[in-house]
């Protein structure tokens, strides 16, 4: 539909001005060669009237420009004329978009790297935003939530089998109790590789001092040395943190797992907190303590040696590669 208005606008002028010579030229050459219009029409499979209209440049009797250009080309070829020269006087069938813009082939961007920076940047911005949210918004909410929920927070100091650490400020008892009690949740997997993220947000999520468990000292850092350093920055936030009194119940179980093969391990304490979760390598050793009942899942029971409070726990009933699920009371 767009073609028609365009052609009616542009062609009458073009026809009268530019193509006036084309028809005359064709007729002249044809007459010179002694060919009749009927013969031309037969050669080109066109009507004789079309040939006559073409020679008279009578657009009203001719179809759309694309056809006319084709006819002129064929006619010129038949007469041995330079078709391009004649066609140059006609408007192209579709005038505007015949332009071709080239692009240098060497300007090709590497496919892989082309979109990388934006992806990366977007991801980074998102991460920074999330981190900001975690640091500034969540702690406030958490504090409000927990202090409202546990008004008796400071009474949780009863789990004092380990003497409170010397802390410069705040009430030592509640801190000590609190730190120990929250311990299983945060640093539960007393994995030799400490979680790298934990020291990053000290003031809000109090990073408790190292696992207050008995020997062997080789694995966990010495309790006596680290507390001042570890707890000093922690101090301001401590009083608000809940003591989670539920944990203060019965005696904790000490588990020791030695892996002879790779295995998936999941251990949850009574409150459902994960003490140890993940796929662990053969040869590694893990010590954890938690309040029973402990729900234990060993992905490869045959590859794990489990000791509970120093007593070996029999896993002989499981085949190699089978999953062991049990609860330690």
């Amino acid at each position, binding site marked *: 539909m767009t073609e028609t208005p365009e052609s009616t606008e542009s062609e009458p002028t073009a026809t009268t001005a530019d193509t006036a010579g084309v028809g005359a030229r064709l007729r002249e050459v044809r007459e010179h060669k002694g060919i009749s219009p009927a013969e031309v029409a037969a050669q080109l499979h066109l009507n004789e009237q079309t040939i006559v209209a073409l020679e008279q440049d009578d657009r009203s009797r001719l179809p759309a420009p*694309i056809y006319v250009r084709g006819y002129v080309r064929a006619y010129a070829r038949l007469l041995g004329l330079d078709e391009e020269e004649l066609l140059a006087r006609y408007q192209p069938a579709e005038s505007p978009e015949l*332009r071709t813009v080239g692009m240098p082939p060497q*300007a090709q961007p590497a496919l892989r790297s082309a979109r990388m920076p934006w992806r990366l940047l977007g991801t980074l911005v998102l991460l920074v935003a999330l981190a900001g949210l975690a640091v500034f918004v969540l702690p406030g909410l958490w504090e409000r939530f927990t202090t409202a929920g546990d008004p008796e927070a400071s009474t949780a100091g009863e789990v004092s089998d380990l003497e409170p650490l010397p802390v410069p400020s705040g009430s030592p008892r509640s801190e000590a109790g609190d730190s120990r009690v929250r311990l299983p949740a945060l640093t539960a997997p007393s994995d030799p590789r400490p979680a790298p993220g934990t020291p990053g947000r000290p003031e809000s999520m109090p990073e408790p001092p190292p696992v207050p468990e008995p020997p062997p000292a080789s694995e966990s850092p010495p309790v006596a040395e680290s507390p001042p350093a570890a707890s000093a920055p922690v101090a301001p936030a401590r009083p608000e943190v809940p003591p989670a009194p539920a944990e203060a119940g019965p005696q904790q179980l000490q588990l020791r797992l030695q892996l002879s093969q790779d295995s998936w391990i999941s251990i949850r304490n009574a409150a459902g907190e994960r003490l140890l979760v993940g796929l662990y390598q053969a040869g590694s050793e893990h010590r954890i303590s938690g309040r029973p009942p402990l729900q234990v899942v060993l992905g490869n029971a045959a590859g794990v040696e489990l000791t509970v409070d120093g007593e070996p726990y029999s896993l002989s009933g499981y085949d190699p590669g089978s999953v062991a699920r049990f609860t330690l009371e």
Partner: protein
Amino acid sequence: MLGFKRLVGIFSEDLSIDLGTANTLIYVRGRGIVLNEPSVVAIRQDRGPGGPKSIAAVGIEAKRMLGRTPGNITAIRPLKDGVIADFTVTEKMLQHFIHKVHEGRFFRPSPRVLICVPCGSTQVERRAIKESAAGAGAREVYLIEEPMAAAIGAGMPVDEASGSMVLDIGGGTSEVAVISLNGIVYSSSVRIGGDRFDEAIINYVRRNYGTLIGESTAERIKHEIGSAYPGNEVKELEVKGRNLAQGVPRSFTLNSNEILEALQEPLSGIVSAVKTALEQTPPELGADVAERGIVLTGGSALLRDLDRLLMEETGLPVVVADDPLTCVARGGGRALEMMDERGGDVFSLEG
């Protein structure tokens, strides 16, 4: 996400893509044809089979590698017979081309894209094309049938209540259609195109000269001395290929009459498709076609005297469109413009 895409879309231009077997062309509104490159992708796979794959080159560079690659690079054509043969590679190629068109932009391009599909393609093939364009970053993908786009691009009066016949001969397929009132009345597609011409030349040379030539050489022969109708002058070309008996490269001379003979089989396939179309066309429209003629578009319409052959075989006037290679892409661009001007109901576009 949709809103965001729309926002980014302000900074992207609408594209019309002629995703062809041999060449991919991209038309940008207001800028014309901005990209015309072979649909070839070279893939590098280091460290043996199963190693990581990466794109070594796309387009012209990759085409130069066709048939000349070492073991760790494969130059492939991800489209076959006008439809996608390798989905992932097509997506990568489209992505590359879309980025190339939007080079130097601040935002990641997210254009509206109109892609031309062969009219004989199945639902599955159309969907593959749509998804691969969407995967390459298109915000919206529309499909248009190739002969329709070709007719618009050629400047045919598709909106009139009279029949126009267009024959689009591409790399993989030839499409013939009769169009009236912005719609396709009859269309058919045969999987014969420039590629089949090349194959025919390769086979001919092997049979008659006992010599093996590659696809690129066959294409060069077709461009330089190929013709569809016996002409007055006989052109000759010296070619080199591997002699099958001796096993060493030998050079020999081919002339245009031999190539004409070689091309007989694929050409007769196209001619019979056109004849069938004429048979199937309703008589009124057939009369219109007979009066004005058939329009040839597509890269293979540039084969010398192809219009002459069709003219003699059908007895109808045959006209080659201006710049036939870009007709489809230009027509797609026009369709996009018309869609904006009057809403999406001008053509049967698949959104």
